[in-house]
């Protein structure tokens, strides 16, 4: 199955976050307003997809971007689509996935990658809580 088709299975839930709950998420994590992330997902056939998550002015934004040439973000989070689906469905803890070396986090703002990991862990917790 292609990466985009796999994504379709969770797209409604992602939209639910994006359209209805994203503001609540950022209310809980105000510091996240100064951060942005490129979330890169890949499949075993070499397919890739990427989203940019962050703020444009006061507006929270989640949009698809070119995975090979994404816009700047303070963090890049990369994982296999199967890992992402498990995480977002609450079947695999985001922290555990990172500790198992299933998620790669790259820092673009001079802070250590593990710093971003700790912050985004809390963000994913909240996102999954909302999805439930």
């Amino acid at each position: 199955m292609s990466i985009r088709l796999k994504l379709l299975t969770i797209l409604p839930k992602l939209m639910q976050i994006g359209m209805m709950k994203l503001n609540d998420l950022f209310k809980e994590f105000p510091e996240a307003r100064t951060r942005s992330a490129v979330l890169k997902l890949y499949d075993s056939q070499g397919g890739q997809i990427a989203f940019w998550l962050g703020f444009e002015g006061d507006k929270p934004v989640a949009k698809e971007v070119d995975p090979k040439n994404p816009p700047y973000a303070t963090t890049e989070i990369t994982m296999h689509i199967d890992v992402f689906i498990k995480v977002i469905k609450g079947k695999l803890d985001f922290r555990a996935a990172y500790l198992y070396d299933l998620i790669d986090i790259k820092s673009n703002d001079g802070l250590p990658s593990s710093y971003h990991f700790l912050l985004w862990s809390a963000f994913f917790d909240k996102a999954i809580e909302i999805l439930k």
Partner: protein
Amino acid sequence: MIPILVTSGKGGTGKTTVSVNLAANLALRGIKVSLLDADLLAPNVHLFLDVNKEKLREAGRMLMPLKIGEHLEYMGLGAFIPRGVGVALNYEKTTDFITTLLKFVKWSGDYLIIDAPPAAIDVNVKLFKELRGRARAVIVGEPHRFAIEDNLRIMDLLKFYDIEIRALVLNKYNLYKEEHARAVEEKYNEEAEKYGFKIVKIPWDPRLQVQPVPELFDQLVEVVVG
């Protein structure tokens, strides 16, 4: 802030127990103390502090340590990762964590107690490099003759990185046969003279399994802080 590295050449010698009790003893004296759990393989400090899964906060590109009472603060992976998950971090990620915990936490204590991972391996070397020339060390070992060799290696590395060894803790001293423990102590006496540290004996006490017993660590505090 003066970093105090609690380290050893072997695992399971009681570094975490010593770290927590050292911190608790200092805090009871009204001294502001920070406690960093740098043992990424077995981050257990939070268990002694009764810290459950906590929400991480940051302020101005720094992570905020958790307040444990008036004079004690803590930061470590243990409070933020799921229980029972194995850690399979590569060297790059491991040393990156050490950097975060050392440099990107808003520590405010007069002393920073660091519970180090065991043995003279890469993660320790990262720690030693970061603390070069400005830290004090406490080596923790049981009075076992095999432990001497491993601790000699740690002593050599600490000297190499210009970290002052203040104390060698002979932990659970009373559990060993007296003549064996004494023979080990005599061997350490030679090293104590060479490196200029004191030997501090801490007895096994069943209370230490479940909670800090700071009063057992008065002598150690005097040696490390004095």
